[in-house]
């Protein structure tokens, strides 16, 4: 036990020997949090827009104004010259153009399907689709201002309006705030990165610079050696989780709705998987560079099919089935559900069970491989 304690002290000293490493270990999660928290969203703002009002009537000016007054669009130019519109789109100066043709107001007042053209640069398909949706939404207001007016139209005619409204309730995230969803995800990614990548590199480092032999002639037992190597990363992972939660709360006001102990306990269970993978990677590689690549490979693969970047629901069927292979899938659900929905142990069981099985299998298999490798 004493030997283990000394080993732990050595490990921590080694990890924090350089100033840069301290900065990275404590700074990186915060940077990651801020960047990911603010950037990953399907909400699109300030789409560059060209306005071409060739009608210049009361109603067309009103339409122009409502495009000017939304933060969805930023008007970059007003022109009636078709050539200049095309030029601007070719040079990436504008992504969308709205063209109100001459004679629009007459058609509009007579309800003769007055035409408005929306021109979009479709290369950024996602943004273009969303922007066109916004534009159509704005124009919709001029179509039928609201349900009241709709009813008035119908009441004026003979038929009564048989209409259904949707009364919507948004649960768990009323404001549709993206950070509430992203930050739990970042926790899952960070836990994976720190525990798997750093531990595998750290283990291989001893091999690469030849100090593993030295460690083995010390009175340390094999399992103590392994413990001494992975415990620091286990502790670090929890520290990182804490940092992200604290910053998440202060910067993005993400509150943990569920139980902290449950979250920590299940994170501990998940660490068996990632630390196990870290040990495994260290047994099949001999340099830090290799370890980095292999763990990077595992990581990207695990993250890709976990539902972090691409929601599982958006994947085609066979990919959805593939996600069951990624241990991160289960942990991601667990973290999100505990933080966002206050999910309890029972309702998480369907993720906890496969995650635990994965963890135990991987951990036991790779420790055995490590022991064999070392002796």
């Amino acid at each position, binding site marked *: 036990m004493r030997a283990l304690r000394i080993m732990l002290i050595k490990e921590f000293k080694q990890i924090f020997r350089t100033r840069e490493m301290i900065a990275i270990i404590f700074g990186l999660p915060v940077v990651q949090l801020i960047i990911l928290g603010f950037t990953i969203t399907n909400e699109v703002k300030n789409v560059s827009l060209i306005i071409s009002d060739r009608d210049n009537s009361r109603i067309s000016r009103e339409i122009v104004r409502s495009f000017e007054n939304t933060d969805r669009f930023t008007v970059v130019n007003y022109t009636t010259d078709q050539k200049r519109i095309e030029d601007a789109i070719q040079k990436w100066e504008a992504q969308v153009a709205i063209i109100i043709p001459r004679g629009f107001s007459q058609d509009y007042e007579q309800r003769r399907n007055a035409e408005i053209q929306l021109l979009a640069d479709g290369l950024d398909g*996602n943004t273009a689709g969303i922007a066109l949706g916004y534009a159509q939404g704005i124009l919709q207001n001029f179509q039928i201002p609201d349900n009241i007016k709709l009813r008035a139209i119908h009441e004026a005619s003979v038929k009564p309006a048989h209409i259904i409204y949707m009364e919507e309730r948004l649960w768990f995230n009323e404001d549709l705030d993206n950070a509430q969803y992203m930050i739990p995800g970042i926790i899952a990614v960070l836990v994976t990165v720190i525990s798997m990548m750093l531990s595998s590199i750290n283990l291989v480092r001893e091999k690469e610079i030849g100090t593993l032999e030295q460690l083995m002639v010390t009175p340390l037992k094999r399992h103590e050696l392994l413990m001494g190597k992975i415990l620091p990363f286990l502790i670090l992972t929890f520290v990182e989780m804490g940092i992200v939660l604290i910053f998440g709360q202060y910067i993005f006001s993400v509150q943990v709705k569920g139980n902290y102990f449950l979250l920590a306990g299940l994170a501990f269970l998940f660490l068996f998987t990632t630390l196990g993978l870290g040990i495994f990677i260290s047994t099949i590689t001999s340099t830090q560079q290799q370890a980095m690549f292999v763990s990077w490979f595992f990581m990207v693969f695990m993250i890709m099919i976990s539902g972090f970047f691409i929601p599982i629901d*958006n994947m085609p069927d066979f990919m959805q089935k593939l996600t069951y292979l990624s241990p991160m899938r289960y942990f991601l659900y667990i973290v999100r559900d505990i933080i966002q929905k206050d999910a309890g142990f029972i309702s998480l069981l369907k993720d906890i069970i496969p995650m635990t099985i994965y963890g135990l299998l991987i951990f036991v298999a790779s420790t055995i491989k490590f022991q064999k490798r070392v002796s």
Partner: protein
Amino acid sequence: MKKSATHKRILSISRKEFLHIIHDPRSLIIIIIMPVLQLLMFGYALNMEIQNIDMAVIDHSQTSVSRDLIKQFEGSKYFSVFYYNNPLSEVDELFLNRKARVILIIDQDFQRKFQRGLGSSVQVLFDAADPNAATMIKQYVNSAILEFNESHNGKLPQAIEVKPRIWYNSDLKSDYFFIPGLVALILVMISALLTSITITREKEMGTMEQILVSPVKPVEIILGKVLPYIGLAFLDGLLILLLGIFIFDVPFIGSSFLLMLLSILYIITALSIGLMISTVVQTQQVAMMMALAITLLPTIMLSGFIFPLKSMPLLLQYISYVVPAKYYLIIIRGIMLKGNSLFQLVGQIFFLFLMTLILLGNAIRKFNINLEK
């Protein structure tokens, strides 16, 4: 005479580094396979539509109109509908256990209100934990209800006919934008990450001193070491580009010569970042983490690779000005997809050039200082 000696020394260092890369086929395979895998996954997996959304229906009305409405949802490819008969107080279980993403509740007096023509409401609960998905699902519900209304009232009068016209990519496919982006990412990853590690490796292993006592000049060491990686980055980028063009039909309109030229400029910028890192750190671990932190994340997130910069908070938009990929993305997308000319890309080229000058100047200065110590 002197020049050819320099040549030789650079080449022999390159050969050594090249052998080092070749000796480790696993890493090489990962370097080459990973981007391809990413390409295929994103290409095939990224689907902006959600289908078969689990919808629980609680029908207290049980009338022909309510059943009509439910049929409307059942007929849609977006929803997979099931009835839920437990008491209302237990509906949150549906979200907690992820049995449903959306719950439709129809009140008892639904049909009566509907037939009186005063408008009848249904309650729709959304699991908004994932706000992007919730927004999308809301749109699907909205349009299903709109369709239902139209089928019961006839088409509503339209005052404006909106005619959208989409240029360059009328199906709004995301591949066109994504694949050139992936090239930008790979070039920076290989150039910055690998060079920073490779030089730090010599330091950490103590072999740097050995090289230094040889008659090789620092500049020659650096050049010799990075050349193989430039080649590797180039090949990898090319591979992705070709796959994109042949598998995903990404168009290539502009000049491939211009793109090649500017890609070299971008690679040099990325290399300077890698060199810069390697001059300040001592161990591979730190080099790796640092390279990941200042190249990988910003290149993916702050360049316009996936998410448009203009939607971000101002501070992050300012930071994006020092992310080389921001400029390269405009260059590669512009040349490939819109056929932009050199003249149209002058601004981007200028920024990349400036960045390279500053970074490279600093790196070489620092490198020399470190050597003298």
